[in-house]
């Protein structure tokens, strides 16, 4: 994506984000934003580091529990509660990351899933999570002591600010030298190691960062919905975030946001109509994405734009070649090669 289209995209995003609560129900918009941040965090791992964490809901859900508990029982303010939950998710991410990065590829996915399932049982059994009922009735209180969050509009702009912060942070990470090394690990880990980088440390840091951001999303979600339940830490939530990212486009900047918006809206619209068939629809989307649509919506869109651009360039070259017949050969050759580079 060229920098101009990206700036255009960010501008559009900010404007859309600011007017959204006037158009659609703010709670739904907040849910989309929380899951979008969660998917962006997940995308940092799968899309840019090539690690498929199949238990990412555990960081989201743990943060939701910590934020709900600290606000409800310890009387923390919302900002402190969310910060505590981010710290908890990061610590858990450090522990799980240390274990999981010892294996790569498919094993990594199985290990993260198994570790997440272990924590699921822990949350099912320990008394402070309220077992099957979860933690209900978390008060919203007020931000920094003076912004009343019981107003949905106030809360929306807080959630939007958190989302923009998370989105910006991930963007900065990807653009940084650190992000370049992550991408290099995704492409060819042994070469990165042979260049003298300690790939394991980079992977671990990416894992912790992703866990912390997933925690930011989860902690915020608990404030929005005023509860944290077992479904936040269930493997189905992990599956949902995989689906959102896959549908939007793995390794794309806006993909997770698009995917989260579609999946959450779909769930909201269909939940009372199809009931138990909802997972079937999710499963079908999964299969269609994997078989015919691996670049996802954002990835396909970028590829489409690039091929259009290449075509236009080829056209321009073609026209030029008619004017300057002696240079024609080389110019049209360039057009073809640009097209081949982006099939």
């Amino acid at each position: 994506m060229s920098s101009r289209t990206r700036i255009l995209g960010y501008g559009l995003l900010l404007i859309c984000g600011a007017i959204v609560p006037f158009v659609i129900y703010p709670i739904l918009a907040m849910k989309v934003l929380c899951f979008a941040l969660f998917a962006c965090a997940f995308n940092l791992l799968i899309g840019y580091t090539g690690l498929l964490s199949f238990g990412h809901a555990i960081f989201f859900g743990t943060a939701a529990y910590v934020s709900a508990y600290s606000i409800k029982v310890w009387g923390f303010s919302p900002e402190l509660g969310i910060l505590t939950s981010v710290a908890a998710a990061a610590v858990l991410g450090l522990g799980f990351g240390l274990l999981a990065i010892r294996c790569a590829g498919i094993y990594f996915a199985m290990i993260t899933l198994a570790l997440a399932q272990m924590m699921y049982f822990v949350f099912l059994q320990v008394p402070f999570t309220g077992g099957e009922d979860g933690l209900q009735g978390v008060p919203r209180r007020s931000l920094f002591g003076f912004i009343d969050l019981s107003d949905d509009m106030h809360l929306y702009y807080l959630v939007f600010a958190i989302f923009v912060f998370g989105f910006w942070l991930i963007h900065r990470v990807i653009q940084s030298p650190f992000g370049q090394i992550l991408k290099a690990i995704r492409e060819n880990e042994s070469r990165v190691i042979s260049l003298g980088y300690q790939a394991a440390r980079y992977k671990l840091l990416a894992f912790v960062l992703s866990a912390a951001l997933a925690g930011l999303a989860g902690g915020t979600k608990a404030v929005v919905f005023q509860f944290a339940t077992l479904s936040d830490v269930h493997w189905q939530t992990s599956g949902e975030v995989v689906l959102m990212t896959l549908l939007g486009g793995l390794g794309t900047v806006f993909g997770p946001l698009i995917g989260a918006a579609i999946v959450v809206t779909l769930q909201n619209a269909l939940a009372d109509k199809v009931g138990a068939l909802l997972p079937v629809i999710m499963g079908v989307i999964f299969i269609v994405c994997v078989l015919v649509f691996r670049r996802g919506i954002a990835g396909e869109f970028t590829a489409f734009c690039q091929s259009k651009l290449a075509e236009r360039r080829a056209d321009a070259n073609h026209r030029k070649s008619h004017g300057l017949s002696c240079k024609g050969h080389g110019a049209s050759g360039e057009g073809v090669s640009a097209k081949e580079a982006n099939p």
Partner: protein
Amino acid sequence: MTTLFEVPLSALMGQLMLGLVNGSFYAILSLGLAVIFGMLRIINFAHGAFFMMGAFFSWMSLNYFGISYWWSLLLVPLAVGVIGVVIERSFLQWLYKLDHLYGLLLTFGLALIIEGIFRNEYGVSGQPYAVPDALKGAMNLGFMYLPVYRGWVIVASLAVCFLTWFMVERTRLGSYLRAATENPALTQAFGINVPVMVMLTYGFGVALASFAGVLAAPVLQVSPMMGSQLIIVVFAVVVIGGMGSILGAIITGLSLGVIEGLAKLFYPEVSATIVFIIMAIVLLFRPAGLFGRAE
């Protein structure tokens, strides 16, 4: 009453048997996962769904068509195997050239679809499946009462595991299979039809899962969610054992079942998590698994 570690011996034996029963299921399922992974390089997330399908098909054939348990034991794996072959031909065969992760994602989607369909039809509550007449009751072994059906599950599972091991390690077909796992291109060059072998391997793997499902129907409640709970534990079992050897999968599966059973007796709080805790410990010391080779 005889006691051991302050626990009545009969209770200890009972938990051991139950652990062996669960361990048998772990063994068959992780065996199937390993065989499929060897050939297809795909982690079959839908394995739990096929296990559930086996249990459900056997319940349905008894209740709708009056097909007895013994016929189910034969027919259900065949039917599920055919479904597996169809799935391999229509979906999985397009993934072999891609990153292995796509196989996991696609089979996860499959699992969601299969479970969703059964949940939509039958709800989340379990359906009871009666133990067949010939296997009812319990045997008095002197120191304990052994429920006959549990004994049968263990014997049948071990027999199936042994047959699979024998087929893969000791027969000509098995040697083709191992050759194709090692180097598919070269095996094909020797005139062996590798794509057909891959197809049959997937069918065989899911047939194994459904066989375990039929065995499990009278022990566990037949419910749409019975597979997904099991499959994550089986993933942990696979990580502990390593994907390298068939014998390794069988031994790991059985012993983890026993450990889980003992945990229920001595320290029930960790019984649900013990397998995962063991997995974490194994990862610390042998990341490739107990029987695995580092790749």
